[in-house]
């Protein structure tokens, strides 16, 4: 990896463009502080450098707002910050430059009342009707309880994009869907069966996670992080704990890192199996659905026997893990993997030879690599459209820095590709679990906690099963959390669903959606 040479070039470029940045070193990354009026210009120069827009969030500190954006290139993360006065909180939008920043800025606009000048679409996003337009939940003068109405009214007058013309019609779907899935609203414009436009309207499961995080202890924050998105409990808990540990200056024991690796890869395998079954089910290939749900169940049962929880919630705690792996457990895990490999190869060859499945999945829901790059698409969705980025590989952290492994990348960009990339990721994950177990040597599984200095902040970045997870933490005095912002990969992946369904038929929407499988909860917070 060509280290961080590009940051030097980029800084010089910034200087010649008269964009001033002050560099402040943080435990995990470098903080670049800039003037708010340079916010957009920075993004323009960053785009020229091919930097990826990663995340954006704000924080209310006394009478000012800290506005943050995170960028990445070649595995090096840069945290950009501008400070604006709370009396007139505004700065130029980055969403014009990076479409990935679009919804994030709308969230910040709703939650803080910060105006992103020139934003291409400044309609409300997270706000429905639970709080009024001119009040902002993440400001310090807004109480956790707020002043909600007895019954919160539905958000009936959201200005959806309209379609006109003969034969064009609308299909509103949700928030309560027909299946056992999370709530959200999809507005289709169609002609005949063809989808002309899709607009997503999320925010239904907004639970105030960022607000209720404030004032928590590290243990309590880890529990909350583990519930940002229930299918990614390991990923989010790990990212949040990593951020807290870095802020506190704690190194976790090597054994704990290996066990975290096993947990994260087990989570990946479980979710991929569930999704692969569901994708097949959405095109009425029930054989695969039954087989995959059966294998997933066996996998979760081993989670329960070995780790004490089927979905692995609350196993990662600040400083390490609370579950050790006995010799017997390791043997069980290894045995399971041998069996799973055998079964998967039988099932996948049956799946591969099935022409009806091929008919439905090939070319459907195509996401062009250029579009995936422009939106900063992550995880298996990105990797099926040529985006190879994987935190485990590009910005390696323990235990991934000790092992060799493959990150599968394809450029086919369709549902079939997102299906097969998952299969390859399962195989890679199984190998990783075996390697981590082989590396285990006796030792502690938790490091003693140290209360961080008030104001310490850090970014915890890990590769969850859906892709890169970014967790920002800042501590107050007395071991209390001042700010927690978790950026689930879904936040960047949801927008491309609106693109990849175009020119597909309405009945293929469920399988298109499943092939992406964004988290509603992780995105609504």
């Amino acid at each position, binding site marked *: 990896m060509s280290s961080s040479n590009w940051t030097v070039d980029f800084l010089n470029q910034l200087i010649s463009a008269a964009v001033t940045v002050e560099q402040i070193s943080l435990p995990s990354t470098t903080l670049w502080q800039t003037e708010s009026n340079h916010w957009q210009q920075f993004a323009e120069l960053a785009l020229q450098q091919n930097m990826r827009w990663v995340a954006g969030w704000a924080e209310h500190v006394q009478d000012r707002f800290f506005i943050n954006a995170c960028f990445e290139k070649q595995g090096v993360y840069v945290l950009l910050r501008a400070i604006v006065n709370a009396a007139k909180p505004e700065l130029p939008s980055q969403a014009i430059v990076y479409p990935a920043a679009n919804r994030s800025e709308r969230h910040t606009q709703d939650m803080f009342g910060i105006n992103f000048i020139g934003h291409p679409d400044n309609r409300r996003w997270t706000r*429905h009707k*639970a709080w009024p337009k001119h009040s902002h939940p993440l400001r310090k003068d*807004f*109480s*956790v*309880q*707020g*002043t*909600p109405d007895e*019954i*919160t*009214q*539905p*958000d009936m007058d959201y200005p959806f994009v309209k379609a006109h013309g003969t034969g064009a019609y609308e299909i509103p779907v949700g*928030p*309560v869907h*027909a299946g*056992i*899935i*999370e*709530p959200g609203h999809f507005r289709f414009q169609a002609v005949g069966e063809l989808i002309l436009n899709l607009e997503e309207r999320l925010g*239904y*499961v*907004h*639970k*105030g*996670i960022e*607000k*209720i995080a404030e004032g928590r202890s590290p243990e309590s924050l880890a*529990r*909350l992080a583990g*519930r*940002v*998105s*229930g*299918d990614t*409990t390991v990923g989010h808990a790990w990212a949040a704990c990593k951020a807290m540990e870095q802020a506190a200056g704690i190194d976790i024991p090597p054994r704990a890192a290996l066990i975290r690796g096993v947990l994260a890869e087990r989570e990946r395998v479980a979710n991929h199996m*569930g999704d692969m079954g569901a994708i097949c089910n959405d095109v009425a290939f029930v*054989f695969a659905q*039954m*087989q995959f*749900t*059966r294998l*997933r*169940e066996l996998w*979760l049962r081993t989670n*329960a026997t070995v780790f004490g929880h*089927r*979905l692995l*919630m609350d196993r990662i705690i600040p400083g390490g893990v609370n579950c050790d792996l006995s010799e017997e457990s390791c043997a069980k895990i290894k045995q399971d993997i041998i069996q799973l490999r055998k079964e998967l190869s*039988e*099932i996948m*060859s*049956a799946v591969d*030879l*099935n022409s009806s499945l091929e008919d439905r999945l090939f070319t459907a829901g195509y996401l062009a690599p250029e579009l995936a790059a422009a939106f900063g698409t992550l995880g298996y969705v990105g990797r099926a459209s040529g985006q190879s980025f994987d935190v485990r590989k590009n910005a390696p952290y323990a235990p991934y820095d000790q092992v060799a492994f493959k990150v599968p990348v394809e450029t086919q960009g369709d549902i079939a590709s997102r299906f097969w990339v998952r299969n390859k990721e399962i195989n890679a994950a199984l190998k990783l679990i075996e390697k981590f177990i082989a590396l285990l040597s006796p030792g502690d599984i938790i490091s003693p906690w140290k209360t961080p200095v008030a104001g310490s902040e850090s970014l915890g970045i890990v590769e969850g099963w859906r892709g890169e997870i970014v967790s920002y933490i800042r501590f107050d005095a007395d071991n209390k959390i001042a700010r927690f912002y978790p950026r689930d990969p879904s936040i960047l992946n949801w927008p491309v669903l609106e693109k990849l369904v175009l020119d597909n038929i309405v009945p293929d929407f469920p399988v298109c959606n499943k092939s992406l499988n964004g*988290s*509603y*909860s992780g995105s*609504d917070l």
Partner: protein
Amino acid sequence: MLRLFKKVLTTGVVTESFKPPKDDELEQLGIEIKRHLDKNFSGSIAIREVDAGSCNGCELEIHALNNPFYDIERFGIHFVASPRHADVLLVTGPVSRHMQTALLRTYEATPNPKWVVAVGDCAVCGGEFGISYASCGAVSNVIPVDVVIPGCPPTPLALMKGLLGLMKG
């Protein structure tokens, strides 16, 4: 196709047998209305699942009820796509304020007699999220609840027992 059949045949039937929950277990599950249910349903119930703000963990385990190990349909319990076809609403999550009206409307759309099962710690008591500007907390703060199945998330076994408790023993 041959490979497919071979796999089906070699997999065999993995579905497990379950005993209906005992009286003390029913009490634990908070089922007080079983008698009425016994009267109203003869052997089958239709369930509409509503995620009213969950983290999606509960949904994963509810899904598992349809896998071949639990295969809950064999007990006459099936999931339907509309509240208008449902006897029972299975509600997860703390009720987010943004879902409050949707939940109320779903409840209204369910024909009488109807029962509400609150699934998971969040639905039972607000869980990790509690009551806030964004969350109404427990489901019972929004609609009447008949049965609670605690757990974070409840295992398929706990769900199974809770639901079988609704049916004739």
